[in-house]
């Protein structure tokens, strides 16, 4: 922090720079080590995974692990599990983002009776642990015949996700009201104001919500664990858990190949939308 104030590059600042970068890189290596170890292990010959456990360079690169891992997954291949994960993630994301944006608009702009009370309840539900709802929801969805379908996981997302509602409210509050007023002069109602002005302008918070929605639904574990008992319906998270049982799993490099593949979508989304994500995370903590 203080280096910025000093104008010249003295020997001391160079030395502190070297120390800084050495430590920062070292720390980065530690942080990223588990991921590198996973990728390295997924490329090793299976018998070497735990015998050369510290080596991050495979003695020979075995791409075939990915083929074997893909196929050795019970009656189904990982194609099924990836497909299921994508279905859950895509519908949850669309539902969560669309409904949250609608609800956020009402909280951010429309002066309706009971808005304050509703907002307090909304914030309260953010603190509510999922475990309280686990059993009653399970019984409810069971009586509706929704067990072994994706519905119990996807449908509640269409009722808005408190965190995304909050994120969008915060963003919409920052949009100048003059724009609304101008629209009102032109005789626009609330729906028009939403679709013509706030919806397009809140693109950044929509994207941030979409990224989080995708991450959470892609990695969702508890819901599928309870509602999906047929292997045909397993998403990746459950499939990986089932095939990681040490008493039955022998093809570890194949399993690590699949864990690696399972985080590829997460990293890809991060690469393309990094800016939105970093800004989104930063603002959530700032404005309340």
């Amino acid at each position: 922090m203080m280096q910025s104030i000093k104008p010249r590059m003295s020997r001391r600042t160079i030395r502190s720079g070297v120390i800084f970068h050495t430590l920062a890189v070292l720390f980065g290596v530690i942080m990223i080590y588990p991921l590198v170890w996973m990728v390295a292990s997924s490329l090793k010959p299976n018998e070497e995974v735990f015998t050369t456990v510290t080596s991050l360079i495979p003695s020979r690169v075995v791409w075939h692990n990915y083929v074997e891992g893909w196929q050795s997954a019970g009656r189904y291949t990982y194609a099924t599990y990836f497909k299921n994960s994508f279905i859950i993630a895509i519908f949850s994301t669309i539902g969560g983002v669309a409904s949250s944006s609608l609800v956020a608009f009402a909280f951010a702009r429309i002066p309706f009776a009971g808005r304050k009370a509703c907002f307090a309840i909304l914030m309260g539900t953010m603190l509510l642990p999922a475990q309280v709802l686990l059993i009653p929801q399970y019984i409810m969805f069971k009586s509706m015949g929704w067990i072994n379908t994706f519905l119990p996981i996807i449908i509640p997302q269409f009722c808005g996700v408190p965190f995304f509602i909050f994120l969008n409210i915060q963003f919409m509050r920052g949009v100048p009201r003059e724009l609304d007023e101008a629209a009102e002069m032109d005789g626009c109602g609330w729906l028009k104001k939403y679709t013509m002005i706030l919806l397009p302008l809140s693109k950044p918070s929509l994207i941030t919500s979409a990224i989080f929605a995708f991450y959470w639904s892609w990695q969702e574990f508890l819901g599928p664990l309870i509602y999906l008992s047929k292997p045909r319906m397993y998403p990746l998270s459950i499939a990986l858990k089932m095939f990681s049982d040490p008493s039955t799993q022998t093809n570890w490099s194949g399993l690590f190949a699949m864990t690696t593949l399972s985080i590829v979508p997460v990293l890809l989304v991060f690469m393309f939308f990094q800016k939105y994500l970093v800004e989104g995370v930063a603002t959530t903590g700032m404005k309340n």
Partner: protein
Amino acid sequence: MTAATAKKPMTKGARLRKRRNNLAGLAFISPWLFGLLVFTSIPMLYSLYLSFTKFDGLGDPKWYGLNNYINMFQDGVFWKSVGITFQYVFILVPLRLSAALGVAMVLASNHRGIGLYRTVYYIPSLLSGSVAIAIIWSKLFGTDGAINGILTMMLGRPMTYNWVGEPATALYSLILLGCWHFGSSMLIFVSGLKQIPQSYYEAALIDGASPWQRFSRITLPMLTPVIFFNLVMGIINAFKAFSEALIITDGGPMNRTMLFALYIYKQGFTYFKMGYACAMSWVLLLIISVFSIFVFKSSDGWVHYEE
């Protein structure tokens, strides 16, 4: 809020407008209201009812009075689980927050390549709750895992300690995994640090303030709103921790990692004591509420909002 709330008798136009606003508001929040009713409120009431019953998930719930709550007090695993959860929360949250703040402060400097470091440190946070990572963690810290491999090289003698399997260290391996995800708090701290006016530090330098004084008198007080936010979210999420414990240790060894949320799941879906599980989930809710209220109430004393 608007002109419509003024005390004067309303004109017909204003009344109409108010009604239209109420209807529009209701229409826009209707998805959320529906969810609040159907997926939250009704299940919560049902859960409260079930907590007073004996219910295996198949037959009809049988009225059981306060017995579930009484049984809890005699359930040794319940108490162990409460203790372990507190241990988990109160070690993990301060540790992760200080790591996040420390790294954020270093990253707030003007060295080159800061953006890259920030990205690399943040990546693990993307994978919090990931099954893949939990599997990797259990293998890294297992008997023949890479941690033992590295220690063997460093210490020069073979290490075969099962970090996730031994009662002494199992919980700490989970805490370490939690700390690994410090990235999102770090990002929030970085942007909080950037909002502190540089002139404060310059003034302090002129007054001859030491680095520690600059930290404790400027940085820390100015950051309290951000610390507060991270603290609340951290505590709540830590109380809810579940999938790591299920996948890595399955509550063992000897229930040393039987986090409260995991114990609720086991009672409900492994032993099918759903009434008991509901009663426990209400205790969890009570504990989280007490802590949230405590943190919120105490915040008047230590959180400084700038006007």
